């Protein structure tokens, strides 16, 4: 467990707590239980998609396609439920498979086609939204299936369903990254792909798998989105990929790959959502929300990057001389 809850979590955890305390000080509505359970609803979709985004980043890739893929998948799900008469119990696994297959295609193009993932997924960001628009003449499909809503809004023992998905998928992801061959291979591929090849790791396969994971988690997010909004729309999920990447980055994942803790991504996502919640509770305009989110991203990465300088500075302020130890420098991504 020491391995899962390692020191890399301290920073993101501290950031989350500090932000929560600040928000709690500005409004007493924050700590109200109803609001706390809201946080899980709010964070769920982006946090689940961020698992995939983070795994791709661990392997030194980037996935810009999630937002458009969510739109496309909600449209496909809506099409299946509303116009093709496919029952929900069948449609859901099908969507998960479709998401995985999209990820597989992106992964194959990236890994075996040797195209930088930024390009592959940028192309997908553009093309998949186009594809989403080809369904139902580009109109949203509303009112899908009453059984869909409880998937998002349901509760078990008073705990909102999304909390369980988060627990399950983050648990699985943390286990995989820390205790399985695949997880370690992902870090190795991200840390030094050339070395990974020479140690017999099938780098292209591992890279491809990370995109399959991303596609699958995007499908999970798309199902929750459909359930929350009981509809599919080619406009859904705009900038969701950036939010997912932001969560990973605020959680300390290095865009250069090979470094980071998947649980920190959850904390990154929570930090962002707590800030947004706090701004909502204080009725801040959306302009302020954007500005604050931008600054948080910058600050989170900045603090991580300047750790050595900051600790030197702290040491100096505390009068302890040059006690600070230099942290290994991140590579520029």
């Amino acid at each position: 467990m020491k391995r899962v809850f390692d020191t890399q979590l301290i920073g993101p955890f501290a950031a989350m707590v500090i932000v929560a305390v600040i928000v709690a000080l500005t409004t007493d509505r924050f700590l109200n239980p109803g609001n706390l359970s809201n946080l899980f609803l709010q964070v769920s979709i982006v946090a689940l998609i961020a698992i995939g985004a983070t795994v791709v980043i661990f392997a030194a890739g980037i996935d810009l396609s999630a937002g458009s893929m969510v739109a496309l998948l909600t449209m496909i799900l809506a099409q299946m439920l509303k116009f093709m008469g496919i029952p929900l119990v069948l449609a859901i696994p099908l969507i998960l498979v479709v998401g995985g297959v999209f990820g597989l295609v992106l992964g194959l193009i990236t890994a075996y086609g040797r195209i930088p993932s930024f390009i592959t997924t940028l192309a997908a960001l553009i093309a998949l939204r186009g594809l989403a628009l080809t369904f139902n003449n580009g109109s949203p499909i509303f009112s899908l299936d009453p059984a869909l809503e409880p998937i998002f809004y349901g509760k078990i023992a008073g705990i909102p369903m999304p909390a369980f998905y988060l627990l399950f998928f983050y648990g699985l992801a943390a286990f995989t990254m820390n205790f399985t061959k695949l997880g370690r291979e992902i870090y190795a591929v991200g840390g030094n792909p050339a070395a990974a090849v020479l140690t017999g790791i099938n780098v292209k396969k591992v890279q491809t798998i990370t995109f399959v994971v991303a596609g699958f988690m995007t499908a999970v997010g798309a199902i929750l989105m459909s359930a929350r909004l009981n509809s599919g729309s080619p406009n859904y999920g705009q900038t969701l990929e950036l939010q997912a990447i932001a969560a990973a980055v605020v959680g300390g994942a290095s865009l250069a790959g090979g470094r980071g803790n998947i649980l920190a991504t959850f904390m990154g996502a929570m930090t962002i959502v707590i800030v947004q919640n706090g701004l909502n509770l204080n009725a801040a305009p959306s302009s302020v929300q954007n500005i604050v989110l931008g600054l948080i991203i910058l600050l989170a990465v900045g603090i991580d990057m300047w750790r050595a300088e900051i600790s030197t500075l702290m040491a100096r302020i505390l009068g302890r001389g040059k006690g600070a130890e230099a942290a290994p420098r991140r590579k520029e991504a």
Partner: protein
Amino acid sequence: MTTQADTPLWEFVDISKAYPGVLANDKVCIRLMPGSIHGLLGENGCGKSTMIKTLSGVQQPDSGTILHNGRPVVIADPQAARDFGIATVFQEFSIVPTLSVGENIYLGNMPRSRFGIVNWRKIHADAAAVLAEMNVDIPTEAIAGSLSVGEQQLVEIAKAVAINAKMIILDEPTAALGEDEIERLHQLLRAMRKRGTAILYVSHRLDEVERIVDEVTILRNGRVVRASGETEINVAQIVSAMVGEDIGEHYPKEQNASDEVVFEARGIATRAGVAETSFSLRKGEVLGLGGVLGSGRTEIARAIFGTDELTAGELVLNGAPVRFRREIDAIEAGIALVPENRKYDGLFFNFRASGNITAASLGGLSRFGVLNLRAEERATHDLIRDLEISTQAEEKTVNFLSGGNQQKIVIARWLFSNAQILILDEPTQGIDIGAKIAVYKLINQLTRAGKSIILISSDHDELLAMSDRIAVVQHGAVRRIVPASELGHDDLVRASADPAETPKEEAFA
């Protein structure tokens, strides 16, 4: 025809491999015997690493047969190679800098429980045992990227040792090691040989080849020019086989030093570890910096070059104190640094020779910020001709050139900038004997023209032969300066690695 004991463990027959545009291996045959150290030698680009990649399952040969204990087999991938008991230390670092030392050692081969769960305790315990066996003191929890280059190379070797292989392949394992570390590696290899391990060994350091290798195969242009047993293990014979001609003196040293002091370091120190270092450099002199791995020679170079800020002391150039706040100040004062790793710190692989050669002199090459491209082409052309660099360099980006040509281009950069003082940090690392001699001749040419050189080299023979004086560096400081002629190989080893003064974490325990 042979006795059982003479059956090769591995036999590689007529292995060919082409890359687009080059036939890197042309019907190469090698026989590897258990309990024997086999040298694979040849000039840069003759196909050694290509052969090794094929043997390690990284790539498949275009044609040819591989026999294991006499039976034909296919080494499908690196995992298959490992299953055959083959362990390889590759020329390119295959350390993952973001992971721990322990994990690096068992990467691709992690001990796991029945349910496929990675057994971290076993990884660290076993890794610690391997490092102990190698007599290396590195914590297994350390992040590999935070280690020094030499330590990383040792972890690299530990990866191969950990497999407990029947055959171990080492592709230039000593390029980043000092004399002391090399000796320890040799001890380890001798122990393995005694245990019956087959060893394939690649190095451009022919002196160490002479010391350890039992038999050699020599390649030229992808073909075997001397098979095992056809050449005696002595440097002169090996060289003439490699290059195809006799090259005479290996260290064509010229004495060009004068008495005029051009540069002085007075008690300089930096946060990177340089402590109270003083020395002077004379016109036309080659001042060698000798020391063990991590003794801080590179750091002294960085301090002189304005990369690291001085925390004490001063630099004196032509009698006047100077202060370099960044590299450009040093360059403008006529100081040059040829970094120890030309690939990462030296070359622009996106440029042809011209862009590489003029990179440090763009100011002088331009008026009002506009470059004189014609002058650039002319100067490049002349330097390529004078330094006998491959003329391909004029048309193609430098990633197509051999290591020796690449190194010459980095040095040419400082000839073009008209530097008066050149710091050459491991200038012959990883380049073949022919290219080394070219670099030595270049050093002579420079000193003859009145330029001064600070030479950093871990090849003691080279350092002793090419320097006028040698400064012995320990813990970031010059301990003493001796004329090279008064120092023997053994003296240098002893002087630089005085065990009484070497704290445990600095070198091998």
